[in-house]
């Protein structure tokens, strides 16, 4: 049984500039103990997708489709039922550790809170568990650190504390939203290692803009572009044989792989082109790509791509 199954999800919301079609007909399945990397550039809708799953969007947002968590459609749950799922069943690790921790509460208490709430422990036991969590994310002197405030932590340690909050309740699904963004090279390497170790027996949706980071941690990779998935495959397949021109372009523009850029820029989610969304930037674009919107097709076993080249 898959832990999470997203079926034909659409998330749109209204802004002053117009209707933002952030997520368009996304289908994605995460099996038990599987780690999926969702990779895309700024403004491709990956963060909106993650917040759709945990349902922390403005009430005015339009969400269509199904999000089945253990076969239960969580889009149909009431807010109260959803609160029982958040943190207990599905946990989220937010980006930007400097602002994601409450400055006036002790770090230990911020971890203990979730444990106390979901596991029915006494406050003191929850706090002890929180200290264990801090130890688990390799924060030295955890007992002392648990009684400190976020401003006393360095950036890397705040990120660790955030991970501890996310993992505190042995959730079945973790959504991590760019946990390595803005970290230093060495700290980043440690956080990646930590995430990898801590999520060995868990399911995770790992969101990042960095293909190499995703490769370190994830079993499968989903590439997202302009609000839709364009390629989905095992990590190795994506690296050895990227099919979509966008994925290829991303690889080629890495500094250590030739620094060959993709021309132009991503389309705005307000004004999406009618044909292939990558049409204007694609080196292989043909006339047909301009008007026909490609569907996701399975090329090899478990390697999906959305491109008319493979039609």
């Amino acid at each position, binding site marked *: 049984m898959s832990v999470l199954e997203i079926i034909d999800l659409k998330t749109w919301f209204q802004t002053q500039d117009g209707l933002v079609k952030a997520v368009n007909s996304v289908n994605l399945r995460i099996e038990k103990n599987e780690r999926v990397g969702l990779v895309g550039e700024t403004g491709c809708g990956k963060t909106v997708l993650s917040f759709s799953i945990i349902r*922390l969007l403005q009430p005015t947002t339009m969400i269509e489709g199904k999000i089945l968590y253990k076969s239960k459609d969580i889009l149909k749950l009431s807010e109260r039922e959803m609160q029982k*799922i958040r943190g207990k069943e599905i946990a989220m690790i*937010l980006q930007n550790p400097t602002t994601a921790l409450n400055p*006036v509460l002790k770090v230990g208490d*911020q971890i203990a809170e979730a444990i106390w*709430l979901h596991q029915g422990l006494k406050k003191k036991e929850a706090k002890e568990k929180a200290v264990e969590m801090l130890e688990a994310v390799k924060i030295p002197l955890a007992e002392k650190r648990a009684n400190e405030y976020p*401003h006393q932590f360095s950036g890397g340690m705040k990120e660790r504390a955030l991970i501890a909050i996310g993992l505190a309740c042995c959730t079945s699904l973790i959504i991590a939203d760019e946990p390595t963004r803005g970290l230093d090279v060495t700290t980043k390497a440690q956080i990646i290692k930590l995430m990898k170790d801590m999520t060995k027996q868990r399911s995770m949706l790992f969101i990042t803009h960095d293909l190499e980071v995703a490769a370190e941690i994830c079993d499968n990779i989903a590439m997202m572009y302009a609000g839709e998935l364009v390629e989905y495959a095992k990590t190795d397949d994506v690296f050895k044989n990227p099919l979509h021109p966008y994925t290829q372009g991303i690889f080629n523009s890495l500094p250590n792989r030739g620094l060959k850029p993709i021309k132009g820029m991503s389309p705005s989610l307000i004004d999406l082109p009618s044909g292939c969304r990558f049409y204007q930037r694609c080196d292989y674009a043909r006339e047909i790509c301009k008007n026909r919107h490609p569907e996701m097709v399975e090329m090899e076993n478990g390697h999906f791509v959305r491109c008319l080249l493979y039609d």
Partner: protein
Amino acid sequence: MRAEYLIKRVFYSVLVFFITVGITFAVLRQIPRSYPGLDKSVIAQYFVYIYNVLQGDWGYSQGVPVLGLIWEKLYWSLIILVPAISLSLLIGILVGAHFGWKRGSKMDASVLNVMMFTRAIPPYWWAIMFILIFSFHLDLFPLGGYMSISALDRGISYSDILYHSALPIITLTVYSIPGTYYLMRNSMLLTVGEDYILTARAKGLSEKYVLFKHVLKNAMLPMVTMIPLECAYLIAGNIFIEIIFSWPGIGLLTFDAIAAKDFSLLQGIVLIDALLIIIANFSADLFYSHIDPRIKVGGGNV
């Protein structure tokens, strides 16, 4: 860290006091025969003046020591001020917090307008209107003063004073609620948008818990910096309200001092108001240094 912060604040308070004293001194010097020691140099005079002020010798108003006069009136003013400050803080913060949390609702918009209206009307006008409505037409409260004529026979009773003070307190409260409300609401709007609130929600905490444990404490922090302005605002408002209600406090005393052009009395009033603001500020600082861990425990990475 906390000690350092508080020492700094005490230093400010002392500075504020000396500057106020400096201004009153500069004014008093120009008024002939208002205080002794004119034969000495200006600086010497200033120090004599400060010495006198610290000693409690605040000059004389028509033969009566100013400090004694003010001390007596202060008591009456505090009967109005203390409940009004507490009530307006309480109501302003509660209402502001509530609508900051439920922002964008119809009720929020109407309350915002009511507050704008309330703040736009001058305090004496509120006082006159309240007397007109509640005392004159509805006959619920006395027209003014601090006790009934019957008290001359039966002696002063607390309930009588309470009865007389109710309307002035209500007026001052109504007048000063919008200030706290605005600030609290704005502060809530900013706090609610913070990432850590999202973290809290993602933990599955209930909305109520998020509000009480995560939002409110943070939203309260910026309130502290506004205390001096609110205080000055209340003291100004109180002058008018005491005049309209003939309440025998500092405000009414101010009015009399203006009418009599009594500068030494005005000087005393300015000094006592400065002290009131300093005390209020310092209590706010104490509170602040207690709730903000960045000051409480200090340290951290640079």
